């Protein structure tokens, strides 16, 4: 109510206020975040140039993706939070319908059906859900009092389970987990009781067996088994992990120097410009490079948390918290899997790995974060 009332006052003062507000704020940009993201993308492009076999074309393509992604971010930042709140259920419905569409009309490769092709333009509906999921759960909870009560938690879980399940059936374990996590993070930020979290954890442990038996595909099981013992299949599934560990380890503290990473330049490292790009960075820039990247990531995440805390609406807080945590999950899963800590699930290193889809989605998320940060009600108090 108070949110609502405060917002009602704004139209009257807006012209007066906007004149006094700094340019960045008027453009709904969070300068520290923008700076960090720019730094990250530049660093990412430097690594990518080396990882993609020093091909200028790959660099230019990725640069174009970034350009597009920054535009998307900018646009996303301009949209009023209220609008997000209103639109999110409709986007949710649309997203789920598209996912169902993928099941019937989808195209794909390597036994997975993930893409929809509309008029020659291919896209992954699951990417839309990455943003829609937290928005939807936040929308649902923002009007129902915090911390959420049991029945609302159950409702949220169903909201999360539906698209996650559809994506799991594609099958795309990595994305399914990320989307489920982005929804659950909203619940967590919203202050869901620790008993739920503990209970869920126990349930997850108990359900591990049936999931292993009936849900996971052979290649997914293989990834987990290979992770546990990469030496078992040196030239097959274990090859990737052995080579990426070798790349990381041989980088040492100083690294072998830019463009001098032997593992990556000589094709020993698979997927060197996409999912395994951190190994290129670790090999060529060494532990110093890893620390630098980690610092940028950490600052971005901390800035995200700062925005979460400083946000004025519960909706904004929940969305910002979830977007930030999801971003961290990308970092953790990718760096963990390349270093052989986690199974290889196909999660890119955010804003460094080559590829347009994830960059655009991620930047849209940051646009959302900036929208939260610069929401009139949040800042101008």
């Amino acid at each position: 109510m108070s949110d609502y009332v405060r917002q009602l006052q704004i139209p009257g003062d807006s012209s007066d206020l906007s004149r006094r507000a700094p340019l960045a704020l008027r453009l709904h940009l969070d300068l520290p975040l923008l700076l960090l993201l720019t730094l990250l993308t530049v660093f990412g492009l430097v690594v990518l140039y080396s990882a993609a076999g020093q091909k200028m074309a790959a660099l230019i393509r990725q640069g174009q993706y970034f350009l597009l992604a920054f535009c998307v971010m900018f646009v996303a930042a301009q949209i009023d939070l209220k609008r997000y709140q209103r639109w999110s259920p409709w986007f949710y419905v649309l997203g789920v319908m598209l996912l169902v569409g993928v099941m019937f009309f989808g195209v794909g490769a390597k036994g997975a059906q993930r893409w929809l092709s509309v008029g020659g333009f291919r896209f992954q509906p699951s990417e839309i859900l990455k943003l829609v999921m937290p928005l939807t759960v936040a929308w649902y909870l923002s009007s129902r009092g915090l911390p959420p009560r049991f029945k609302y938690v159950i409702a949220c879980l169903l909201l999360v389970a539906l698209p996650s399940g559809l994506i799991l059936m594609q099958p795309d374990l990595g994305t399914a987990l990320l989307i489920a996590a982005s929804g659950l993070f909203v619940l967590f930020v919203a202050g869901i009781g620790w008993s739920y979290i503990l209970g869920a954890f126990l349930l997850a442990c108990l359900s591990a067996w049936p999931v292993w038996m009936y849900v996971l595909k052979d290649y997914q099981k293989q990834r987990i088994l290979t992770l546990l013992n990469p030496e078992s299949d040196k030239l097959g599934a274990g090859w990737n992990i052995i080579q990426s560990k070798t790349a990381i380890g041989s980088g040492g503290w100083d690294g072998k120097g830019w463009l001098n990473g032997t593992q990556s330049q000589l094709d020993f490292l698979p997927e060197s410009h996409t999912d395994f790009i951190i190994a290129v960075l670790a090999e060529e820039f060494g532990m110093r490079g890893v620390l630098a990247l980690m610092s940028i990531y950490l600052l971005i995440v901390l800035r995200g948390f700062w925005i979460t805390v400083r946000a004025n609406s519960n909706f904004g807080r929940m969305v910002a918290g979830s977007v930030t945590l999801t971003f961290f999950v990308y970092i953790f899963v990718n760096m963990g899997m390349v270093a052989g800590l986690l199974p290889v699930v196909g999660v890119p290193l955010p804003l460094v790995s080559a590829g347009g889809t994830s960059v655009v989605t991620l930047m849209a998320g940051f646009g959302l974060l900036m929208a939260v940060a610069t929401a009139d009600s949040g800042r101008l108090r």
Partner: protein
Amino acid sequence: MPQPIHLKDPGGDSRIFIARTLFSALLVLALMGMILARYYDLQINDYEIYRTQSERNRVQLQSLPPKRGLIYDRNGVLLADNRPSHILSIIRERVDDLDATLGELQTLLPISESDLENFQQKLQRRRPYEAVPLRFRLTEEERALLAVNRHRMPGVTVDAQLVRHYPYGDLFSHAVGYVGRINEQEAERLDERDYRGTFHVGKVGVEKFYEDLLLGEVGYQNVETNAHGRVLRVLERFDPVPGADITLHLDFHLQQTAVEALGGQRGAVVAIDPLTGGVLALVSTPGYDSNLFVNGISSADYKILRNSPDVPLFNRAVQGQYPPGSTVKPMMAMAGLQSGLVTPETTVADPGWYSLPGDSRRYRDWILKIRGTGHAPRVDMHMAVAESCDVYFYDLARRLTIDRMHDYLLGYGLGQRTGVDTTNERPGVLPSTRWKRDAMNQPWYPGETLSAGIGQGYMLATPMQLAAATSVLATRGLYRAPRLLRSIAGEPQLSDPRETISAPPAYWDAVHESMVAVVHSTRGTARKIGEGMRYQMASKTGTSQVIGIAQNAIYVESEVAERHRNHGLFIAFAPYEAPTIAVAVIVENGGGASAASPIARAVLDAWLVDEAPVEEASGDASGEVPGQAPGAALVDE
């Protein structure tokens, strides 16, 4: 969309968010710490392990086999060269299922059992990522087939390597020898560092004797490879040092003449330049195509060579030990003069046979079965050599005794290896009482001295030894170890002469004159070959018995099985006044010296009379006709 209105507690909500965000931040820090710890572990703690592993991954030490030195004849005719040959190799580390790959390869091209066996052996000794050869000499067609199917078979490579080739096939097989693939025993013996990347080693002949010279030094390169084993760049390179090109004393034309003159008979011809000791021709027939051995002879081919009664693999020129027969008579005559037991004027009664004092056994002269009597009532040294009188030398041998005979003949190099620079040389036998005691643990019997006096009995000599001995006669006592090698990379190789026989010139004159009379006199044993000769040669005929002939039995050539017929021998040097060539010829089971003497004449003619047709020979005989057996064109000419 209408918003349900709830009363909320912003302050309370804010606390929840702050608490949860703080918790999240701490969790993020903890998990990031965990990730960093992992990277620290990999990059700092285990740095050495992974650094080594990445070096091993990318850097490969590749050997660069040296080019084997070429072998030329004295006029620059290439006797052994190198030709590119395509080799199918497998890099084991890049093959998932070796059996499947081998099976697939076998459907594409023939791979013999011995290829597979060889491959498996080498597989055990390889370094990681080393290409192990499986099939040599891929044809154009096979290479095309492999190129089409290679993408399905990772780890299978086709490389070109220079491989030995002998343009003249069997013409020089015994003179030059051959290389072959390194077998297991050789792999044990050879220093494998020198043979990295080299699959061949000299097996026999000059190829083996000068292996160290011809091999060269292996080079290395450190190459960076990608995960598919493709070489991306060379990090450092130590060039191989090619083997030295060597020139032999052999003369293509002479060799060819000798082979043609032998005309398919079993035998050997060795020609030596008495002034240098250089071996001008080294022929042993039948020969074989040396190229058969280079890339592994098939067991069928090998069986044929191995089981042939003509033993083509046997190098008669240095391995064949034959009783020298009457060819020792000039040397015996010199020994007689040197010892003072005879002078050129000394004569011996010749009834056609000889008996030891107090012994009724008759040692017959070969003339007895032809004329029923001796050469003449009394025979002097000149006649004894020219007409090959046995009785004269029976008498001389008896008076000389076997041990002094041994000492005098030693100066001609008999009874010991000449030291010629090739393999498998046998020493022959120059008997003495001591030799018989050592070798047979038996005393020497006087009758055996008589046999030895005409080059029979225990005495054995190789054609190489006889040629060397003839050279000593020609140079009046200078012994030069026969040598095939003339120069290394243009640097002449000289062998020092040793004066092994010191005698007054008059003695040499007398013996030489008697040898000239063998051809150039009306009663000489080889007078038939003297017709139309434009130079004078000093020579000696010889016949050596293959089977013992019973006392009083008469040897009738036509009644004896071919393999039991006598060997025909002939030694000669020419021109008589200033010798430039000494030759020894043996024709196995030729019946007598008349089988050998025309061959010697042909060789001497080729050396002294013919304009050596170098240009004609220097072309590569088989190069123009792909697929034709090397050397075949020559045989047809």
